[in-house]
């Protein structure tokens, strides 16, 4: 099975890296869409269905946190699993993003196999994950 994935990140270099990692690690990718922020992503999702979303947090216009909130409010989009990719490895931030509906969380720096594993885990079991507590 191959997947349609949306990458949301304001860094073109980071989007290129994530796409390359998915392709080179053997992840079955049928389509890969890109957006520079949450607003662009929501616009794209009006016309394109995706199996998974990989999103940054710190972005201009509409950041990752607001993006997840908006996703959860859209009936057609709330079931699309989103994985957060962020430099913020603090438990508080992770917990908050998972509470907002993220199904996975990958901290930068990560190794290619880490991203692939998180993608596959999320796509195989796209249900909510337990929110860690301090």
């Amino acid at each position, binding site marked *: 099975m191959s997947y349609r994935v949306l990458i949301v990140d304001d*860094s*073109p*270099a*980071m989007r*290129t*890296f994530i796409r*390359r990692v998915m392709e*080179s690690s053997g992840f079955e990718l049928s389509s890969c869409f890109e957006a520079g922020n949450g607003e662009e992503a929501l616009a794209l999702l009006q016309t394109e269905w995706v199996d998974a979303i990989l999103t940054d947090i*710190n972005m*201009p216009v509409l950041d990752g946190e607001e993006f997840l909130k908006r996703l959860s409010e859209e009936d057609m989009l709330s079931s699309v699993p989103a994985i957060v990719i*962020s*430099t*913020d*490895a*603090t*438990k*508080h*931030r992770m917990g*908050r993003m998972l509470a907002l509906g993220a199904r996975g969380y990958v*901290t*930068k*720096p*990560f*190794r290619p196999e880490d991203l692939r594993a998180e993608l596959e885990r999320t796509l195989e079991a796209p249900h909510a994950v337990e929110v860690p507590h*301090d």
Partner: protein
Amino acid sequence: MTEAALRKALADSIVETLDAMFFTSCLGEPDPEGAPPEMASQVSFEGTRPGRLTVRMTARAARSIAANFLGEDEDDVSDRQIGDVLCELANMICGFVLSRVEGAEELRLGAPRIVETAGPAPGAVTHAVETGCGVLEAALEMEDRICPP
């Protein structure tokens, strides 16, 4: 956190970040006679200990690291792409260090940007490595509250 612990966190962050996402190995301390840094990126942060992290490197190292990150030949990488990658590198190193320094406090990082290659400010915690294509140096400046070693 002591300055020594902060310096170790900075060193670990450089090694891990370069290895995991830039496919670049750190080859030990830089040659003191080597070329000085020519490019720099910087990210500021807020919190109980606000400050900024600056990454400086030679143009050759920057091009090599950008090419590795993007999976392209060095000759095909544009200056804009190099700048974008250097900003992402500063962002990652900064996030890695602060996640270990700040405890449970969420990170509040500004947008990384390319800056002039001025040397580190007095009191900054620094760490430099040889990448095989030139030196890479990171300098972390935080508003005191660092216990002396």
